[in-house]
């Protein structure tokens, strides 16, 4: 049987990067993906109009309720896109009855990189040192200076549009030209800067969408709904960018429909030898071998593979001599925010469909300490003119309409409304040993593989922060001159998982007794086993995490190749 130089498990955000880096550095790589292959010309649906789909985007409620009861909680899972999300009936997991967890995911070549939110923000030195300064969990074994060159490297490849602001809490990157702020957003920026004397900065979202042609990929043409795919490859995803790069080397073998049951372990050498899979189509059980294994299957799936790979040497899960594996599950707390109406700027409107919003960089616990809670949050949102003209801001069922009916009503609906301003927070979640996943030995998925049992809840710090996000969203909209400021409905956050930023179950650290991975994403226990998806995170910060995952993946791949050249791996 062929032994590959490296095996990468999972083809999402980080698996695509691992495959690209390792093949470009000359390794023969097998990329295993549990889901099906996709065909962009068929699967991408961004250029469908509402009248091109049966229920105009509303979907068949009965079908969605039956097959996607959890996935449909995600804003991006709808009639156009549900084929990029897992069928909940086929992909079960369990939780304690009183602690639901929303596990939102896709399983196909490209994983969630197809439907992701495309927002990319660097971590700052403050984020990497927070655990150590505050005595929370364990310190990061890596600092900003270690990862900065890899941020540069990744940004240069994926293409990030954004504006330079010189903020210490979200360092500037290698930016393509920024997208424009709307008139409403420009006004918000100025009002906030004045009111908080420069401490609260609104900038255009930093996003992995091209504002000019870049590395053979076309600039965005602003059709709008990126979560449905992008046939011009204008936003970054595995199928749009890293997978073609890996394939161009001629050294990649992509094997979709390969559901990993467990990793193969050689007790004589204390190394992993490859993976045992079940073919999702033929149901055949197969084995593949490689010198190095990269787990990039996403936090919960990678941890599940390791826990299901327990053996006599590692009875609590492969590479789990620390006992930490599965613990410290984090997410970002969101769903708190406010919306207001701004009267003024009647003579301007926004035109076109910008697939990006605004960002207000974190301001809590940056320069001044918040007395109630640790860490902080950022705001995302934006300001657009209300009304239907242009046809992009479509009516929703249950929307507010002018009174009456008939010709006058028809005309009234075409009038532009006032400007609307919206702010929604994304908050940091502290690592807690109680938030964890295990294996439920009594429940198996469609392939007979025991499923994750997830036990997680928000703790006091997140709940205090959530409440403060609600207040500060309203306070800031009022400072911008809004009236009718409405704080969003949910007084407490939805269950963890709703942020779709689950991370942390195989954390890094310098001490093998309290961490699974070393500073190179290499397991302390087994030196040819690496994990570079969100599992490695020691804290969560409040930045959208994908950029950081990609940077650590590229760094780990570089380390592996250097070690192999030296004969140390």
């Amino acid at each position, binding site marked *: 049987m062929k032994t590959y130089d490296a095996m990468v498990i999972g083809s999402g955000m980080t698996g695509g990067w691992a495959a690209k880096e390792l093949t470009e550095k000359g390794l023969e790589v097998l990329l295993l993906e549990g889901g099906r292959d996709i065909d962009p010309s068929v699967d991408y649906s*961004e*250029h*469908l*109009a*509402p*009248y*091109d789909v*049966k*229920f*105009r*985007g*509303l*979907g*068949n*409620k*009965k079908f969605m309720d039956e097959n996607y009861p959890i996935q449909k909680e995600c804003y991006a899972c709808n009639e156009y896109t549900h084929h990029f999300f897992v069928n909940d009936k086929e992909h079960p997991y369990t939780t304690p009855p009183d602690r639901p967890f929303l596990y939102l995911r896709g399983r196909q070549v490209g994983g969630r990189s197809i439907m992701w939110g495309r927002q990319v923000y660097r971590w700052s030195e403050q984020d990497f040192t927070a655990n150590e300064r505050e005595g929370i969990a364990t310190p990061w074994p890596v600092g900003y200076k270690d990862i900065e060159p890899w941020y540069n490297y990744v940004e240069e490849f994926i293409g990030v549009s954004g504006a330079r602001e010189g903020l210490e809490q979200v360092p500037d990157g290698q930016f393509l030209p920024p*997208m*424009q*702020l*709307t*008139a*409403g957003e420009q006004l918000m920026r100025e009002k906030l800067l004045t009111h908080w004397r420069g401490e609260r900065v609104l900038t255009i979202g930093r996003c992995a969408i091209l504002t000019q042609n870049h590395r053979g990929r076309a600039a*965005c*043409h*602003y*059709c*709008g709904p990126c979560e449905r795919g992008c046939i011009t490859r204008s936003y970054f995803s595995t199928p749009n960018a890293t997978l073609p790069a890996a394939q161009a080397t001629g050294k990649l073998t992509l094997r979709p429909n390969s559901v990993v049951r467990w990793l193969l372990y050689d007790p004589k050498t204390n190394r992993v030898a490859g993976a045992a899979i079940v073919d999702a189509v033929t149901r055949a059980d197969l084995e593949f071998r490689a010198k190095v294994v990269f787990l990039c299957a996403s936090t919960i799936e990678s941890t599940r593979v390791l826990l299901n790979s327990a053996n006599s040497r590692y009875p609590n899960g492969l590479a789990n001599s620390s006992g930490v594996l599965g613990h410290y599950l984090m997410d970002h707390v969101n769903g708190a925010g406010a919306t207001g109406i701004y009267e003024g700027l*009647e*003579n*301007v*409107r*926004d*035109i*076109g*469909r*910008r697939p990006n919003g605004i960002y207000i960089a974190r301001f809590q616990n940056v320069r001044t300490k918040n007395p109630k809670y640790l860490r902080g949050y950022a705001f995302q949102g934006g300001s657009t003119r209300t009304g*239907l*003209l*242009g*046809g*992009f801001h*479509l*009516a*929703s*069922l*249950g*929307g507010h*309409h002018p*009174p*009456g*009916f*008939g*010709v006058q*009503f*028809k005309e009234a*609906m*075409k009038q*532009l409304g006032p400007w609307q301003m919206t702010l929604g927070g994304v908050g940091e979640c502290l690592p807690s040993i109680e938030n964890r996943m295990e294996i439920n030995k009594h429940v198996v998925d469609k392939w007979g593989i025991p499923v994750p049992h997830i036990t997680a809840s928000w703790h006091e710090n997140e709940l205090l922060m959530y409440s403060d996000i609600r207040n500060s969203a309203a306070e800031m909209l009022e400072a911008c001159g809004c009236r009718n400021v409405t704080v969003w409905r949910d007084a407490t956050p939805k269950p963890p998982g709703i942020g779709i930023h689950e991370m942390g179950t195989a954390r890094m650290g310098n001490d093998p007794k309290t961490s699974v991975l070393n500073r190179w994403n290499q397991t302390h226990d087994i030196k040819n086993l690496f994990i570079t998806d969100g599992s490695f995170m020691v804290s969560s910060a409040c930045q959208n995490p994908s950029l950081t995952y990609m940077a650590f993946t590229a760094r780990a791949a570089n380390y592996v190749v250097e070690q192999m050249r030296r004969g140390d791996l």
Partner: protein
Amino acid sequence: MDLICEMIIPQTRTAGARAAKVSQFIDLLLAEGELQPRMEIVAGLRCLDERSRKLFGQDFVRAKPTQQVDLLTRISSAGSFEAAVGRLFFRRVKSLTVFGYHTSREGLTEELGYAGPSGIGTYEGSAPVAK
């Protein structure tokens, strides 16, 4: 339904609800999609006919156009006897009609100037409102 939809969004220089086949879309939603409003709408239509027979001696569709407008106006006006019974029904039908119309090819392109699913190709922020 077809008549009520067209009364809400009539044909003018641009397509109305009938030309945009809005009532067929609502039928589809009630048959296969959102199930919950179905009884509300069936019951509402029955009430409308009962009230029309009482006031005009005819089912709603057979009443004179002016009588139809009169009855729908009563239902949509707060405080009227008809609104007490039919307000929620009317609000639901109106909302379905507006959605069906604005997601139809006619409603989107003719009425709202929708540039098509691939957009206008650029984004340049805000611009003065055309007079």
